């Protein structure tokens, strides 16, 4: 009887944490909304300088998109493994997710480095301010996610796959999927739109 009570107490606590994290993700989406709104309003203010059309490389962005999408997929598979209690599979699939995430980050940093090298920085004009902020904030979230992933995987390696770890991985996967969803809109509104 006590065991069942304790379990339902745990279940209720889990449910609360999932819900709370979901609401947090909604607030994060709203912050991105402001950045999107600012980008939409200011992206035309290039003062005659180069626009996205002149500077973005669609093939590079397509690569980034496919990499991130795949990492979202492998993250999902990792979660199936986690719920099945399979520690090695978890490490494998989340390891792949981590690697893909790093690759995405690398490509993005490369893109930024190129732009800065050509003299376009956040201080150049309103278009670049909003571009670097919107895409850069997404990148910062990716970095946070990777850091979170690395630490969680280390803990899984050391402490094994207990229920706390599975819960953490679930929250992490929510976060990771959500980052891919935000990227869909960056891909569309920032990059594709520049060429419309």
């Amino acid at each position: 009887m006590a065991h069942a009570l304790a379990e339902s107490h745990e279940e209720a606590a889990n449910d609360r944490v999932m819900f709370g994290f979901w609401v947090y993700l909604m607030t994060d989406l709203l912050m991105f909304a402001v950045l999107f709104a600012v980008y939409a309003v200011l992206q035309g203010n290039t003062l005659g300088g180069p626009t996205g059309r002149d500077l973005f490389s669609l093939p590079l962005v397509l690569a980034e998109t496919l990499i991130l999408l795949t990492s979202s997929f492998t993250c999902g598979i990792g979660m199936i493994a986690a719920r099945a209690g399979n520690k090695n599979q978890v490490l494998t699939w989340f390891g792949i997710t981590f690697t893909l995430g790093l690759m995405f980050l690398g490509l993005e940093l490369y893109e930024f480095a190129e732009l800065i090298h050509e003299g376009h920085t956040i201080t150049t004009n309103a278009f670049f301010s909003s571009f670097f902020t919107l895409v850069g904030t997404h990148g910062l979230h990716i970095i946070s996610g990777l850091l979170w992933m690395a630490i969680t995987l280390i803990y899984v390696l050391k402490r094994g796959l207990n229920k706390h770890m599975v819960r953490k991985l679930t929250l992490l996967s929510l976060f990771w999927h959500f980052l891919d969803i935000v990227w869909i809109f960056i891909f569309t509104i920032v990059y594709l739109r520049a060429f419309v």
Partner: protein
Amino acid sequence: MSKTSHHLPDHPKGDHGTMHSYIIGFLLSLLFTAIPYYLVVSKSVTGTALLATILGIAVLQMAIQIFFFLHLGRGPKPLYNVVFFVSTVGIILVVVLGSIFIMDNLQYNMTGAEVNKYLAQKEGISQLGGEKTGACQGTNANHKVTLKSGKVSPLHTEARLCDTITFINEDDMVREITFGQHPKHDAYSGNNDLLVRKGRGKTITLNQPGTYKFHDHLNPDIAGDFTVIP
């Protein structure tokens, strides 16, 4: 209750993904990434139609990932997650579309370019960023138009661009000089109406060429015109 021997947290039933849902979600997302990419690169659709299409497909891909990766809607009731998600989407639309619409509408009465032009005229700034603004650099002749006892003298004034014109009121009542044919209340070079008290005058710079009517909006019979020659 869970029948497994592992002490794993009991997820609300139905909340899990199966391999099935992830694979379908992945393949559909790949498809809906490739389609807009191809459409943009091949330029087979253009303009607003293209924009609407890629935005629509983005929303579609988001829905796919929300359903197949995040399993929204498959948890236990009450479905607070769904409610929060839908309302967040609504608010995002208000924030983004609202901002775009409002910021554009702020130029409804006067665009940014017009504001700059008006300011340049007023302050006599003749060039901005290497380009001429067309503002008058200093003024030339001054023309006086006197309003007295219901008469405008002179009735017609001819002036050159960048001259000034002064409306002088020598009657007892206040006069509201505005431009255009009564009852219109047009503006000339940003001046909408000039309130001239008894014994006073108001001067404006003639920096727009053409012929313009003016009248006293309070007594529309009192009217005249002036021509500005470049």
